[in-house]
């Protein structure tokens, strides 16, 4: 695998921004995650935020940008020694039935598809977590089939419930907490992608992959109870890292 041309820029006096070519690509994301792992081994005190084509390194005190950049440039050049990043595939249950899918009928009519076909497409894709932000545990997912792309609602809802699964433009995702929101709601997941009572509060990381599977209302109810009592286990799979 070829090395990318990286750009290093100061981000204030306590942070450094590393950027890859400005493209949404899984290879780039994997390279970011691999580099992140290597940096974490050398600089355990740095906080790091990966997103799409960037990795931001944050220190608690002012940093010497030039010194850090020269260390990172040589670390990146020795890339074959990088530690393999562990990535996971998460299988997330979603109930696509009423009352969780208020916008599914309109979406089906606009797309000229049946509701079943939309659910079928939404559950057959594999999504990549390109960033986590906006809200604690909110995932920016890439990989939604083009046939499901649909503009955000003209009038955002004042309150979207926790677990709501929506489509907004090219993106799909889960609302990790009740919040205002403009996405078209097509389902609800009983799992809590972010739970401050857990450590870590969010198991999913940038670079991981997501698949949704359909469950009925009874299962949703059962899983909700299991999640609340802490016995529900999300089905996960370790992914082999292609850059290894």
């Amino acid at each position: 695998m070829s090395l990318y041309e990286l750009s290093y820029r100061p981000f204030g006096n306590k942070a450094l921004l590393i950027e890859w070519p400005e493209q949404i690509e899984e290879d780039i994301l994997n390279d970011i995650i691999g580099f992140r792992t290597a940096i974490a081994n050398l600089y355990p005190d740095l906080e790091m935020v990966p997103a799409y084509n960037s990795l931001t390194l944050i220190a608690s005190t002012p940093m010497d940008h030039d010194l850090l950049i020269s260390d990172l440039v040589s670390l990146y050049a020795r890339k074959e020694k990088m530690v393999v990043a562990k990535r996971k595939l998460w299988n997330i249950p979603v109930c696509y039935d009423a009352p969780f899918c208020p916008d599914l009928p309109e979406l089906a009519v606009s797309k000229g598809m049946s509701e079943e076909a939309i659910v079928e497409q939404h559950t057959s894709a594999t999504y990549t977590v390109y960033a986590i932000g906006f809200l604690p545990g909110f995932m920016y997912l890439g990989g939604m089939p083009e046939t499901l792309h649909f503009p955000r609602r003209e009038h955002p809802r004042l309150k979207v419930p926790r677990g709501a699964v929506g489509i907004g433009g090219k993106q799909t995702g889960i609302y990790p907490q009740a919040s205002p929101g403009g996405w078209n709601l097509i389902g609800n997941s009983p799992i809590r992608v972010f739970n401050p009572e857990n450590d870590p509060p969010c198991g999913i990381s940038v670079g991981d992959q997501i698949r949704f599977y359909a469950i009925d209302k009874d299962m949703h109810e059962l899983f909700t109870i299991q999640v609340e009592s802490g016995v529900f286990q999300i089905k996960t799979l370790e992914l082999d890292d292609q850059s290894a």
Partner: protein
Amino acid sequence: MIKVLNPGLFTTIQDTGRFRLRDKGVPVSGAMDHRAATTANLLVHNLPEAAVLEITMTGPVLDFEEHCSFAICGALMSPKLDEETLENNRVYKANPGQKLKFGRLQKGYRAYLAVAGGFDTDIVLGSRSWYFPVTSRRQLKKGDVLQVGDLANSKQEKAEAYPDVFLHSDYIEAYPGPEYGLLSDRQNDQLHKGIFKVSNENNRMAYQLHEKIFRHEHSMLTSATLPGTVQLTPDGRIIILMKDAQTTGGYPRILQLSDRGIAMLSQKKAGDQLIFAIK
């Protein structure tokens, strides 16, 4: 313990913040004016990371139910212990039954109350800072009872108070941000020479400025943001992210405030003016 008779406008528990979870979208939180919070802590011999009350614009009424040393720093809010008028940056001792209340806001916007031993509230994900829904609490309410921590935690040497210059300066220190280079000469000029006003849209998440600068059409992929990141929206609005801000964003990051800049901006309220002092 301390009983809350009246919560004030927006009063929260804050410490130095919640770290190492930004990659999961968790804001840092923590005291907006970290220097005032730290000074208050050091005055009562606390460690700098002890939890304090952050008091915004209108202060609470608190009833001390035990002997307690305390100090108030930051905004000048005419505090009184029963009928005694208090000064900022000084240590006072309260007896059980005495009440602390605040009056007119004279200068600044956020005051910090530290008690010897610190406020012993729940630690969630490594911090006591309130940020809903990571913490179940959003702000102080009437009837709350706050526990004071063990005095054995207090061992710092007494510190010098910072001078109050922070409350009086309009210059907000900033570095060029990652997308500073995208600015046109005209925008750059506006940013360097402009006198801006804080808009009504200002809180712990972000401060929006009243004046706009020229619009732009740069788009970028979502990337990390920090407290103090100055974003420029396509229609030329300037949004300065603060301690409870989201951890990623999609607007160009034209400036980055220093810690000192964040602290100084935290003492500004709607209508106050500011000038960017770009390094």
